[in-house]
């Protein structure tokens, strides 16, 4: 039997080298995780209200429309964490799925008309659709009120207010 050039004392043993397999597996896992994160980042960044004794819960697997409202599209994590309320209280960006409105370019009334159309279409497509309202913690209540009125106007009686989950 031919001697191994490396191991002078005996023949080469047949061993399975699983290192490349593990490498490739991790590469695949990373790829899929990255792809998933991109999907999650479609929601615009804002700081939802932090609650005292939160009673929030996670919404199950339902068809949902997420409406995000914030005052600015440049989001500074550290500043927001330090003082979530020290920001412009006026709504500027409203976004639903891929559609978004900048209130510097369109009036609130026009944006609400378009939002109402979208909501009615979605409601017609799926009557059990859930609406999630992600408002930035710093906004004034009067900025969010017209959006809630629009949701009601689309005959959607309940809305899910998005806030921080309790930290276990």
């Amino acid at each position, binding site marked *: 039997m031919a001697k191994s050039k490396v191991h002078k004392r005996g023949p080469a043993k047949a061993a399975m080298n699983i290192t490349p397999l593990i490498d490739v597996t*991790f590469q695949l896992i990373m790829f899929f995780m990255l792809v998933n*994160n991109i999907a999650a980042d479609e929601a615009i960044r804002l700081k939802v*209200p*932090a609650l005292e004794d939160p009673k929030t819960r996670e919404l199950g697997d339902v068809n949902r429309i997420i409406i995000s409202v914030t005052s600015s599209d440049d989001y500074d994590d550290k500043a927001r964490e330090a003082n979530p309320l020290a920001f412009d209280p006026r709504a500027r960006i409203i976004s639903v799925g891929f559609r978004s409105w900048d209130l510097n370019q369109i009036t609130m009334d026009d944006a609400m008309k378009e939002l109402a159309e979208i909501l009615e279409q979605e409601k017609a497509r799926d009557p059990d659709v859930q609406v999630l309202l992600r408002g930035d913690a710093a906004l004034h*209540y009067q900025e969010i009120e017209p959006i809630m009125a629009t949701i*009601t106007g689309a005959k959607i*009686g309940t809305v899910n207010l998005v806030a921080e989950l309790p930290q276990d």
Partner: protein
Amino acid sequence: MSSMSASRGGDVGDFVGRNIELVEHDDSRRKRELEPPEMVLNLTPMIDVIFQLLIYFVVTASFAVGEGVIVAKMPEGSGVEPSPLDPPKTRLIVQVNSVGADPTGYMITVQGRPERPTNFRELAEVLRQMRGVAAKEDDPVVIQPDGQVRWQHAVNAFNAAIAARYTDVRFGQSASD
């Protein structure tokens, strides 16, 4: 060991004056042939895998706090009209007002109660005390923030009513603008 050093001495003697580096080279090659190969743990694949794991966790760690939902009824007056057959219920009205000096401050008033809760835990406590005494748990609780109240406080007041186990909590139209 002593024989080794003796043979090395001999080798060095043979090559002295020619090339000292050649001597060293020859010596180490012979040593390798004589001694059994050393057992070496190959760390490279382990380090590879550990780096993969490290990058994986760094990338997937989400530093944002998880978001959850509270189910809310919409502002009254714009929603579905209540059926006239329903018996009238006492409504608990909770007002949340902004405070002039501090843009992020708030003031809570529960209608018909003298005390002013200073935070939302106290509000939940007041509402909890009222439940079963002045109010039933299915009585509507109407949160009435004024226009200048931050959304955080409005949602907090809402959450307090849910925490006090009221089943019908809704937003009212803003008290004043």
